[in-house]
Each structure stands twice: as C-alpha cells, then as structure tokens.
C-alpha cells in the first residue's frame, strides 16, 4: 500500500518492524504489525485511541518485551540491530533510539539545564573516567563537561528556553516542558527519535512551532523521527510516511495524502463501516 518511493526506502530504512505482536494475558494489544521507517524521514503512527500505538513504542524502546516478531534498527552503513533482544537502557545507549512520553517525564526537581546534562550521562561517565577523573578534577574531564554544557545550551537556544535554563523543570509551562523533553531526547544524539503525542495539549501556534522544530531536526541533525500523533495538522504537514493502526493491526500505510483519503482510515476514526465512509466521501460531504 506504499505509493511513495518504496524501492528507495527499502534501501535506506532505519527501522523495520516485522510481524510484531504483543499480548498481555488474554489481550492482544498488537497483532502481526509490519512497517518501515525511512532514514532521515518522519514517519507517523496514527490511529484511534486504544489502537496499540504506545504499545508499539514501548516495544521499540524496550519497555515491553514483544511476544513475537522482530524490530531491526539499521544505522547508516552499519549492520542491523535486533531491538527485541536489547534491554531497555541499551536501546537508547547502543541503538541510539530516544523517546518522549505521553505524560511528560521530565525530572521536575532539576533545572532545565540539569535535565539536558543527565541526557548526556553516558558520554560524561566515560569522560569522567567512571567518576575517578572527575573526582580529582582532571582537565580532560573539565573539557568534556564544558562540551556537554555547550550542547545543552545549543538545544536550549534552539527551543527558545535559554533564559529559563536555571529554572526547575517542574515550574515550566506545559508547552515548554514538551519542548524540553524533546531537547533532552536530542541531547542523547539519537539516530531515531520516537515521540509519543508531542503535540498533545498544544494550541495551534505551539503546534506550528513544534512542526517547525521537528522539520529542522530532520534537516539539520539528520535524525529519523517516528511519531505518534492525534493532531492531524502536524501529521499532514511534516510526515513523509504514515502508518495507520486500529485494534492492534495495521489498516493502512502510505503518504499523508493517500492515508487521508483512505476509506478504511476514515471508517476507523469515525467508528463507522467502510461502505458508509465511501458513501459519505462520494456524496461530497
């Protein structure tokens, strides 16, 4: 069902999800799902509530162990990594997959700057010689620390929070917190950025700013983005490829325009029959 440059994408995909399934006891949350996300592309995962989208995210980012299927992550010019075999933190550390959460998970008692510093933990740990170089104040450590602060400053400026760098993250307004979470994820310098409803609760202006931010991330950092979103304006504007889920299965896939006009997708969102949806569309209303 992919009408865009399929052959190109298969050569340059970053994530290949194959026959993924996830059961919880008797409930099948995700059933035999297969899709791909392209390198340096923005792929959107949409569908009505309860379709299983966050479950897919949790599988990809290692918070759930899938009950079946594979997820292959391929960095440019490197062999594929089997995500289903990695443990949670290693997916971020080794596979370079970062994520944000549906309910923002910042560190509220730490400042914005500190949040971004925590994100660079692994690099800093190495540079501090597993803490010991840091304890004695070695110059190599100080250089590394300054570099980390610089990266954090760069991102704070990028999201427009530089003057709030020393404020507690828990004190920031909602929209700022959302952007800070994205900046924090970017500080891990990921290859794949997974965003869980980044536009939730944002007004039109903030959504537009978010779209701009994501597009610039794709352009300047070359990060591939996978996002779950309900806000169709954001999805339509920035996605290169859209995957639609309902009741744990994929029901449609393609470019934003294709998906928007697909009667199956409309039916799923409206909770109506496919025939009814076609009828409505053809009647022009």
């Amino acid at each position: 069902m992919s009408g865009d440059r399929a052959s190109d994408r298969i050569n340059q995909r970053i994530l290949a999800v194959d026959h993924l399934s996830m059961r919880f006891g008797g409930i099948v949350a995700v059933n035999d799902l297969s899709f791909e996300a392209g390198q340096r592309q923005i792929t959107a995962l949409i569908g009505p509530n309860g379709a299983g989208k966050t479950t897919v995210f949790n599988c990809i980012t290692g918070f759930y162990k899938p009950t079946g299927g594979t997820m292959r992550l391929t960095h440019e010019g490197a062999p594929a990594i089997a995500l289903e075999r990695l443990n949670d933190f290693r997916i971020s550390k080794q596979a370079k997959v970062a994520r944000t959460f549906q309910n923002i998970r910042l560190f509220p008692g730490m400042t914005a700057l500190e949040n971004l510093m925590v994100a660079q933990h692994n690099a800093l740990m190495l540079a501090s010689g597993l803490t010991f170089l840091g304890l004695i104040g070695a110059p190599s450590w100080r250089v590394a620390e300054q570099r980390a602060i610089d990266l954090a400053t760069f991102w704070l400026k990028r999201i427009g929070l530089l003057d709030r760098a020393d404020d507690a993250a828990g004190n920031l307004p909602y929209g700022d917190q959302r952007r800070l979470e994205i900046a924090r994820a970017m500080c891990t310098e990921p290859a794949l950025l997974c965003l869980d409803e980044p536009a939730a609760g944002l007004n039109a202006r903030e959504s537009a700013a978010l779209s701009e931010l994501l597009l610039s991330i794709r352009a300047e950092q070359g990060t591939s983005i996978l996002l779950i979103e309900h806000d169709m304006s954001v999805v339509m504007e920035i996605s290169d490829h859209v995957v639609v889920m309902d009741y744990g299965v994929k029901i449609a896939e393609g470019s934003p325009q294709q998906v928007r006009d697909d009667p199956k997708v409309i039916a799923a969102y409206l909770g109506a029959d496919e025939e009814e949806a076609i009828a409505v569309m053809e009647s022009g209303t």
Partner: protein
Amino acid sequence: MTGVSGSPSEPKPAAGAPGFGAVLKTGATSAFVALILFSLMIGIRTEAGPTGQLIYWTRFGDLASLVAAVFVGSIAVELVRQWWGPAGGRVVPASVQNGLSIAGRFVAPALLVFTLLVPVIFYDQRYILDLGILVLTYVMLGWGLNVVVGLAGLLDLGYVAFYAVGAYSYALLATNFGLSFWICLPLAGILASLWGVLLGFPVLRLRGDYLAIVTLAFGEIIRLVIINWQSLTGGPNGISGIPRPSLFGIPLTPGDDGLAAMLGIEFSPTHRIVFLFYLILALALLTNWVTIRLRRLPIGRAWEALREDEVACRALGINTTTTKLTAFATGAMFGGFAGAFFATRQGFISPESFTFQESALVLAIVVLGGMGSQLGVALAALAMIGGFELFRGLEQYRMLVFGLAMVLLMIWRPRGLIGHRAPTVYLKHAQAISSDLVKEGHG
C-alpha cells in the same frame, strides 16, 4: 496530566467564631477514647510476682491524670489548629524567606568553624567532647545514608547493617591480625560496600515500601547472624579489647613512646578524646566533600535523576542497575567507615548497638534534614542527638518521644528542615528549587 485528588479528609477552614462547644466536644471525645485505651494498660499494672505467678495492682490515679491531660491537650491542639490554619498551609512572607536564605549561607561555614574550635573551647569538659563525638558520628551516618535515600531515593531501612559490618570488620581485623586502624579503615569501607552491593542486587526491582521492608529484613539478618555466629563474632558478648587508634603509628599513651612525650607536653587522657574528635570530624568532612563532588559528576546526577523518574532514566540510556548499586555501595562505604571509628572509640562492640532503632534514627535524621541537603542533615543530627541527651535519666520515655516526634514531623514538615534543593550546574544563577517539586523517590 495530574489526577483528581478528591480528598474527603481535607480539613475544613475555620468558620467565624471557633465554636467552643465543638472544641469541647472534641476534647471530650479524645478523653473518652483515651480512657478506654488506657483503662487496662495504665490503670492496671501487672508484674511477675516473687513466686513467679502474675500479680497486679491498680493505678487509677495515674489513669485519671493521663485522661485529664489528654482532655486538656486535645482542646489545646484544636484551638491552635483553628487559630493557625490547616497544617502546611502557612505562607512565610517573602522578606522572611529572603532573610533566612541569606542567613543560611553563613550558617554552614559558621557551624564548621565552631565545630573545629569545640575541643579548644571545651577542653576540660569531657562530657561535651564525648557528646560532640557522638553527634559527629551520627552526622557522618546521616551523610552516608543521604546518598542512598536523599540523592538516589532508595528507601533503606537497614543502614545499620553497614555500620555493623564496618565495626566488626575493624574489630576482627585488629584483634586477630593486629592491623593498625589506618589499614583497617579502608578495608572496613570496602567490606561494607561489598555488602552494599550484595544488598543492592536483590532489591533492584523493588519499589517504595517493599524496598524498605527488605532492607529492614536485611539489617535484622545481619544482626541475628552476628548474635548467633558466636565463634566468629563472640555472639551477644561482642568483641572487646579493640585497640585504640594511633596517630599513624604513634600511640596516645603516657609512655615514653607516646605522642605526648614526642611533643614534649604532659600527657593527659583528654588527648585521646580530642584526637578521636578530630578523627571523626575529618571522616565526616571527607564524606561531605565526596558527596558534594559526586553530585556534580554524572554519577551523582544520575542518582538524583533516578530519584526523580526512573523510567525516564532508562529511556535516556542510563543503566539504572549500576546506578542503584553504586548508590548502595557508596552509602555503605561511609557507613563502614563510621562503624570502624565506632569500634575504635568504644574499644568494645556488641550486637546491642546495631538494632533497627539505629537505622530508624539515622533515617529520621536524613528525612528531618530535608533529603539531599548536607547542612540540613548536620543540623538534624545535632537536634536529634542533642535532644536524646536531654533525656538522660528519662531513658525509658526516649523512644516514646522519638516515635511521637517522627509522627509529628511527618504531619507538619515531611520534606524536612531545609525546604529546597540546590542545583549542581547553572548557566547564570543557581536558583534553589523548592522541595515541593523534588520527588522523594520510590526506589
């Protein structure tokens, strides 16, 4: 984002004139409940009689006075509550807050200077010096536990286990192998931190209350093993004859090879006390310095991030397992150091000193201090241990008051004395973060 907190038990605001009838009614109800509660336990006093059977006598006078005290006290509490507003709702005016925080910046250095001069000022008062050593020991224990509970948010109710491991390690190494204190000290720390890791492994996936009770069980297991493994630890009799510390080999004795002779001054037993005082002060300051530095390093920041949100940590690629284990190991190490010091100061140790009450006391110090705050912990230790000293002669009521104090503390000021957290890195200006925002951690 946040859930609805429908709270049927929130106190109603005072409505106009405090209905004195209502206050009286509260008092009467409390007195009535007290009467029933105390009727048997206080009114009647049992004891094993001279021939082994149980006898009893009545204490209705005590019962009456206690019930009356509850009546009066309950009325007083009601009046205070109505006058002062609901607990925790009081707003400190900004000017006072500013003044306090400016004064706060001087408290720590002033306190340090004062502590350094204590042996000089109170040279002749052995009692004060001993008290000072005791306070400093608990300050160090508090700073050590602070790493685990305050920074990493891991609820440890068995900290006394590491204290015991340190003490017994030093005692056994010193009495069996004749090793000097300065060699045994790092060894005690290493052994204690090994136990810290051993404790850490099983509790990695536990949260909150479960983590707490497992650490409690761990502490008790250590104590029971010490009591029962008589061949190794001497059982309930403990280990005695633990050698006193020397200044890097120079003993503090009256003999010709003693330090006093070397310095050409007259020997006095106070020398050893002063030496011990500065020793524990040095150990405590070491703990403090290491903690402050670690907070600014990635590991310390990871500990605090772990406390704030463990799931987010994992999503950022932080290995929460090693983070937790290093927190336990570091806290345990300091506990071990303190234990070694305790052994050498006393000259004798027994399992009696390592009960759950000690763990609870150190935890109370950390919580009272405002978890994560170095100064707060020091002040809390001073308050608690000083407070305990006031109960000389009334020791049987000590735990009663301590328990009540813990309950009151949790109701009135659960975040502790110091109500804020200092950030470890800043671009322009370090702003203290109110402790309302700081998570307390779930383990």
